[in-house]
Every structure is written in structure tokens, then in C-alpha cells.
């Protein structure tokens, strides 16, 4: 279930469009910001608020790779594995990240701090290899630099 503030933000978002359904992606973003992922309950709630069939909300939510449907770590690492990053060593770095965290892609570390996912091009090819931690960008990565970055997120 979404809190009152999220509900109000969705209501305001819907005013920006000629039809409320257009606020569906904004609503999914708002729900994900609140809980870290979008639960089926949240989808049902959004369906009611925007007057869109539940099945359509589910169908739309599952289309987009940045909408998560299960819980993640407190911090989500999205590491690029597209060509410009691969050319400059993304694969060994992903291997390093995986062994540092001790979990597979999509799993949460035992302390709940991190989960990681491979991601397609994040438009940081001038700083390849690159990754996002939550909304923060980190580029020109090396194994040592990744170790230092991980320390900064509690």
C-alpha cells in the first residue's frame, strides 16, 4: 500500500496529461522510490487510483527493466556491460564486483546493503567502464575504485 504522500504525488502527476493513465510510469517510479520495488499491492493501488485495469498495470510494469518487482538491497548497483564498457574491461570488473559482494546478479547481500544488476548502455561511455549506484554515477572504474565506492554506501 502506498502512503498518503505518494498518493498525492501520483494525483498531481496525473494532472500533467490529458488522460490520467499517462501517469502510470510516474506512479510506478513513485512507488519504487517508496519501497525499493513495486509490489503487487502497490500495482493494485495504482490501478485503482488511475482507473486502469490491474492487468494493464502489471503488463506495463513488467515491460520496463528499471521497474523492480522484488526487494533489492538498500543500494542497487547497475553496472554497464554494453560494448564501449566491455572494450575497456567491464567483464573482469563485473567478476570482481560479484566476488566482492559474494552474491549473484539480482540477489541481496546478507547484510541487506547491496544488490547488483548488469545494465545496458547508461550513456557514460566517455567514462567507461561505468556504473550507477542508486542515482550516483561512477566512471573510469578499476577493481580498487569499486572497493572504495562500496565503502561509501552504508
Amino acid at each position, binding site marked *: 500500500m502506498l502512503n498518503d504522500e505518494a498518493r498525492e504525488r501520483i494525483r498531481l502527476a496525473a494532472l500533467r496529461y*490529458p*488522460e490520467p493513465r*499517462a501517469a502510470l510510469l510516474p506512479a510506478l517510479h513513485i512507488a519504487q522510490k517508496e519501497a525499493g520495488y513495486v509490489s503487487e499491492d502497490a500495482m493494485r493501488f495504482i490501478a485503482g487510483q488511475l482507473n486502469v485495469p490491474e492487468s494493464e498495470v502489471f503488463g506495463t510494469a513488467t*515491460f*520496463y527493466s528499471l521497474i523492480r518487482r522484488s526487494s533489492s538491497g538498500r543500494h542497487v548497483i547497475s553496472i554497464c556491460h554494453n560494448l564501449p564498457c566491455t*572494450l575497456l574491461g567491464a567483464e573482469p570488473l563485473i567478476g570482481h564486483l560479484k566476488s566482492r559482494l559474494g552474491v549473484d546478479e539480482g540477489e541481496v547481500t546478507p547484510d541487506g546493503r547491496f544488490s547488483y544488476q548488469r545494465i545496458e*548502455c547508461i550513456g557514460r*561511455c566517455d567514462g567507461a567502464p561505468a556504473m550507477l549506484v542508486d542515482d550516483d554515477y561512477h566512471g573510469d572504474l578499476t577493481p580498487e575504485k569499486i572497493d572504495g565506492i562500496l565503502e561509501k554506501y552504508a
Partner: protein
Amino acid sequence: MEQLLLKRINVPGGLDIDIAMAHGAYGALRISFGMRPVDVIDEVKRSGLRGRGGAGFPTGVKWGFAAMDPKMPKYLICNADEGEPGTFKDRIILERDPHLLIEGMIIAGYAIGAERGYIYLRGEYPAAADILERAITQAYEKGLLGNNIIGSGVTFDLSLHRGAGAYICGEETSLIESLEGKRGQPRIRPPFPANAGAWGKPTVVNNVETLANVPGIMALGSEAYSKLGVEGSTGTKIFCVSGAVNRPGAYELPLGTTLREIIYTHAGGIRGGGKLKAVIPGGASTPMLTAEHIDVKMDYSSLLSTGSMLGSGAVIVMDDSTCMVHATAVIIRFFEHESCGKCTPCREGTGWLHQIYSRMLRGEGGESDIDVLLGICRKMKGKCFCPLGEGAIQPVLSSIKYFREEYERCIRERGCGGEQCKGMMQGSKHHMTNKFQAPSTKSQTLRTLDF
């Protein structure tokens, strides 16, 4: 050389509207409001500006179609769903000179008669989202957005709309579906968005860099602007150079600048003293070129004559240490992930291509696999619903054309067991895993593939 697009990106504090205005922002808006909308469109037509997102359609012509359509209201959408691998030009404008884009959008909205605009921003650009929200708020506070903009009687409202990770939404009809709150899958064309776009109304969808050219055109005048660049490819272009170069980055240069100048003069040449092997000139969906093409002019028609395309202007550079089978596999993995699932040739074709590349890298490739790859491309070509599938086959066809012996060696020597191939060997592992299997090397002949 005069910069039109990146001129303010290094202005200290330039995200603030007052500082941006002190450096010329919103100056071209006053010029444009002094002209009739139809004259603004003519000015953009005469400038020769063509779309910078990949397709290269003449911008003024697109505007004219929407302006002439009697249906109201009309919509203007900025395509900031910059997903073409290797491309980061729009991000630089969005994060470092958002007012240039907003000014271009107000002028475009005035020209086509749209009072509502949306910036469709890719979900992977959270920093740009915050910057744009602030810039839009400041523009409202200054009376540059909303009703009666700077006393002109013109209305233009602008909102940011964030995507959520789908390359297909860079295709304009998919983008419109996504904006409307649906799965981002393409619509049949015609009708074109200029006549029936968002909510069925006349809609212009323009790329960030395209719209960012508009203030410069209006300030300089179309005649001076059209002297930049070369015949048929006027103006400047932001080239995004990535991969094996010393200075990866975004360089604004006149269209028609040679690939050699871009790589060696601006991007500092090949990293680590290696040799240039291959270049993708316009983003992952454009055909690869080789060191032989180093003197090609980077403009719409010169690149077409090499068999490639200008695309988004994303120059991905590969040196002689690059395995072309692996590099192509990385691109194909991307296209399979991003195929929207709507049409069979693309949905199955990209998956099959990915499966075959994965088995080649695992050392399980068969002698006929090169022909199977080419056969799949033949089945996709001209049969996909939208440009995604057509683009997906380009790296396959071009890398086999230029580097066939590497494919043969990969198959003959049962892969190289290289470190970088390891992450690629699992093949498909995402949402569309349970579909048809690619033709196996052992049990099926090419003839059975020729359905």
C-alpha cells in the same frame, strides 16, 4: 570553430537561468516570437537541419506536417531516451545546458502550434532528471514557460516524463505509447505522429540535439547556419567517441569532418599505441567500418556510400586487440534484451543470433554457423515491424563481411577461452528465455531454416 550546441557547457554556474541568460540563453526566443510561426518553420527548412537522433529526417518538413494538420491540440515531445549504445551527446546538453533545450522546445512549440510539451527522459539518467526539473521550474518563474510567455501571448507548458529502461522507446511511436502509460511497443505507420501521435493528436517528436540546434539557427539565420557542414548535411554535430581511444568524449564539429580527424585529432588516437581495427560510426545499430574507411566524411550521405550510417554520431573505436566475434556478440545480446516482443522476426531472430554467438564463444560453434547467422539476418531484413530489428542485423552482417576469418577461426579453434568471453557464454537468461531454440548445428540443415 563556432560552437552552437556545447558553447555554454563549461560556463560556471550555467545551470542557473540567470547565468545562462547572461550568456545568451533565450535570446533566440525573442527573435522567433517576432516572426510568424510559418516563417519560423521556413527558416528551419532553409537551414537544412536534419534529425540528430538517427533517422536524419528534415526537421522543418516534419514541423510543417504537424502545423498544417487542423486537429487540436498539438503536442511537442523531446526524445531524450538516448539509448543507442555509445551515445551520450544528449546527456551532456541535458546535464550541462538544459536551458538550450528548453529554449529550442518553446520555439518549436510556437512554430507548430503546440501549447504542451513533454521531455521523455530515459530512466538511466537520474542526474539529468533533477537538473531538468530545476531548469523547468526556473523557466516558469521567469515567465518563459506557461501562459503569455514574456508578454507575447504565446502559451507553452512543459513537463518531464521519465522512462524506465527500454531502448525501444527511442523509436518515436513506441515513445508515444510509453508516454501514454502503456508498454513501449511501436505503432504501425502511417498514420505518422505528425498527424496522429500522442492521444491521437498531431505530434512532433524531435531528438534533444535536434531541438538544441534551433536557437542557433534562429540566432544566426538559416543562411549562415547552412554554411556550416557540407551540402545535404548542414550544421554541426556532436560526435561521441568511445572505446579504444586516448580521449573519449563528446566533440562538436561540422558535419563532414573526417573520421580520421575525429579519432586522431580530437580523441587523441588509439589507446596504448594499438592499431585501429574497426569503427562503429553511428551507434550500435549502424554497420561497422574498418581502418580502410578512416578518411570517410562523417555526414549523412558520405556514410551511406560506405554502406553505413551517421546514426546518432556515436563513434565506437576498436583496436587490434578486439575479438570481433565477441564484440558483435555483446551488441547482439543488447538487441535481444531490448527487442520489444511485438514482431516475430525481431523477437525470435535476435534471440537466435544471441544463442549462436554464445555457442561459438563457448567453443561449440559448427561449421555452418556463419551461414546460419547470415540466413537469420536474411529472414529478418525488411520483415521487422520497426527499425530495431533492422538495426540489430547490421553489426552481424558488417562484421562477417569484414572479419569473416575471425569467425572461422573462432569455430575452428573451438573458441579462444578468453577471459572476456566468459560473461557471454550463458546465452539468453532473461524474460524471453523460453522461446524457440536457434537451429542447432548438428540436427538441422540450412534448408530447414529456409522457411
